[in-house]
């Protein structure tokens, strides 16, 4: 660990808050996902190596258990991601609605392929399975915003808005 880069400090108050949350359950481990989501929000949308150990320490489970969870679920990232995460649904209804064209347009527009982050660190482009919005296919999410009936033309105007938006749409996980 000593030779690893520490991206950011974990403030004591936040650590305490996360730890307190876990006491709320019959087993502290129930709080793990929430704790990891909060840590991810704190560390700019991804979980650096030290966050795995921090989560393990806060919740009281072993680091491999945390790493096992972090690498299992779709919404934990172990590599840096952009300020806005774009997920485009490519399941069947969106496929029928033409999501492949949208994706191609998006890849060209952003200059990255699925799974990559733009060099300026603004966007990460990921595939997602069904967003539960199939009657308005194809759809995608940018940060917290759901966009329905997406077309290549619509993408152009959409990104004008996002490119100019100063707001960071970091995936914050649970916000209660």
């Amino acid at each position, binding site marked *: *660990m000593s030779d690893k880069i520490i991206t950011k400090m974990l403030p004591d108050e936040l650590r305490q808050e996360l730890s307190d949350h876990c006491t709320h359950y019959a087993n502290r481990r129930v709080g793990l996902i929430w704790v990891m989501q909060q840590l991810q929000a704190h560390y700019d949308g991804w979980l650096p190596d030290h966050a795995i150990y921090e989560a393990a320490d806060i919740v009281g489970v*072993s*680091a*491999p258990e945390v*790493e*096992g969870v972090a*690498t*299992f679920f779709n919404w934990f990232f172990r590599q840096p991601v952009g300020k806005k995460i774009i997920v485009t649904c490519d399941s069947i209804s969106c496929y029928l609605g033409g999501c492949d064209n949208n994706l191609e347009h998006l890849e060209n527009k952003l200059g990255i392929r699925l799974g990559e982050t733009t060099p300026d660190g603004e966007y990460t482009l990921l595939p997602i399975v069904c967003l539960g919005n199939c009657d308005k296919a194809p759809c995608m999410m940018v940060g917290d915003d759901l966009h329905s009936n997406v077309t290549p033309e619509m993408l152009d105007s959409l990104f004008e808005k996002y490119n100019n938006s100063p707001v960071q749409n970091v995936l914050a996980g649970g916000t209660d």
Partner: protein
Amino acid sequence: MADKVKITIDGVVREVDAGTNILQAVLDEGQIIPHFCYHEALGPAGACRMCACMIAPGPDKPARLEMSCMVRASEGMIVSVNDDYALKFRKQVSEDLMLHHPHDCPVCDEGGECMLQDMIVLTEQQHRRDRFPKRTWVNQDLGPFVYHEMNRCIQCYRCVRYYRDYALGDDFGVFGSRDRLYFGRVEDGTLQSEFSGNLVDICPTGVFTDKQFRTHYSRPWDLQTTRSVCPSCSVGCNVLPGYRNDTLRRIKPAEQPAVNRFFMCDRGRYGGEFVNHETRLTEARVEGSVTELDVALKSVADRLKEIARQHGPASIVGFGSERSSLEANAALQLLMKGLGSNRVCYFDNQDRRAAVRRAASITASGEVSVPTLTEIEQADFIMVLGGDLTAEAPMMDLAVRQSIAKGNPLFICSPRAGELDQFARASWRCVPGEEATIASFIGSVPAGTEATEDNFVHTVAAALQKAKKPLIICSVLHDDPSLIEAAFSLAKATTAYGSRTCSLAYFFPAVNSAGVALVRNDENPDSVMADIEGGRVKALVICERDLAATTQGNLPPWLSQLEFVVTIDSIETQTVQASHAVLPCVSHYQSFGTLVNYECRAQAYDGMHLPSHVNLAASEVLTALIQHAEIEDMIGGTDFQDIYDVTRESNLHMDRLRVGDNGCVIRTSPKLPPPSRKNQKDNDADLDLRLWHVYHTFGSEELSSLSTAMKERAPEFVIEMNPEDAEAKGLSDGAHYDLTNQCGIAAPLRINDKLAKGTVAVPVFINLKRTADAEALL
């Protein structure tokens, strides 16, 4: 005995235990259903889908494809292993599993004993239809014991289930999901479990292979294998040393239902390098010059007889060893009898002698029930008294972990926390010597007392009174006879709480401690040493014992006063170097004999036949010495029972012992020797703190610590102290701390809050270059 049910397997009616899973039932019948994720120790998982069979609950019921490991046998069940549908399904699973396997068999260490290969061949899956790229992985460096090659993985989950759920390790896991599963550590680094080497055996293919075996690899089918007993602790695990040409290549556990079933600890597995060690003795030496063995034997025999004539027979004493076989120790007894001396001494001090002999006679008395490892796994309450079970009897620790894994309580009372303390429901740190008091407090708590959070004694007593299969485990390594007594009293007292009995297991300093403790004729070491210092003893015959081993590597000063010291051993110990004559014997893994483990189970073992100049076991060297001294007449008629205090039945059983059988539990005559108290003449008398010897899993055992890999795993050489004591003394972490006068060592100080206040802990490191290491640290 479990109830039996009749099930039909491929048309043949078999009687099996009710509730056993079908796969195990079939395997027990000597048939095989291909399988990967199922392991008898780990149970079913249902992950690999390889053991699929057609199973119908009864004659008129429809058969369905089921995983045989997941189905429990019930009366009338019909199992079709070789049904076409099942065969086809299993063949398809084989194809699935081989999609991403690298087919790197020519360079794979697992070759020749690859379960994956065996099972794939069984399913007759021979052709690859996949044409897509295989996935690849980056491997990890997992330390000196285990080599990692993730690309071979078939994702059966055995490793993670073993490492985390069975061995309770916390630095290994499964990462990723879907077809991208990775089994390893969060980052590169040495596996911390003391049982990591079992990954090599548990992995059905070559993901985890033996890194030490790699350093002198041989194809497994070129290895010759014998069946032996591991010499590194008093559990006495059965092992299979594999050798080729003139070297030991690796050690694997041998299945022994009464002792270790599938596993062994890393100390045993990787601790066999002493066989090949550069310091092993190859020639006899007399007064510093290399001599033919026959000439040396004759010369030593003459010299001993001469000393007996000159100074009287009582001037010669035999020093036996807790790591020598019953046979070698018996031969030493005979030699001493033949020389007319009859003086034999086995222990370094009277406290150890009292503790070991008392514990062994309690164990062999039959007055308490002494559990096998399997019975330890089934205990529903465990209390460990004294010592550090993980380091001092590792496989007993692994058995305890099975009880913990079922949610049973563990309590520990010891001066210093070990690895097992993290699983304890409560631990009590006391100064050395106080464990006995705590144990007697627990035994005297009246029935019906409730557990209270801040009262360790009440908490333990309450749990103990509720338990149905309680077990007390007690260390005999710390020379405290009163603790032995207290553990015995506690076990006896607690049987009064109900109809159930409380089991008791002592673990001993060495592999045959319990065996030599049953010797009838054994002198008080303190009086022998007084005789040596007083010049009344002129000669010693030392058999497989390093006098520096338990004294922090310092030879006793009186050794140089002796006129003649002859040592029989296989390696160049400090004692060998200080001897006038040296008679070489073969190493443990090349010799044969009988060893008695912690349950007083006598087990016969056999040796490897390495081509070497040295051919005789220690017992044979001693017998040859008797012959050369021409003293056979003096010892004629002495039989086993004259030497060892065992019952006639035990004697008869022992005559029939065979290598690889279940051994026999020795019983001694019912009268126990009187209890004794710890000798108050402590060598820590001029210290205000009590001295505690820390045995480490890696580095503290005499033979295994000669292995290079063991040195890598040995912890740092430090003296430990509780923060409060350190503060009172004005010492800080890393300060130089000199205990040369008290126990012969000086080392950096390490503050340890898991060490009892009022205690100073020093490590027992035997073959590590302690002085150089310590100096380098300072």
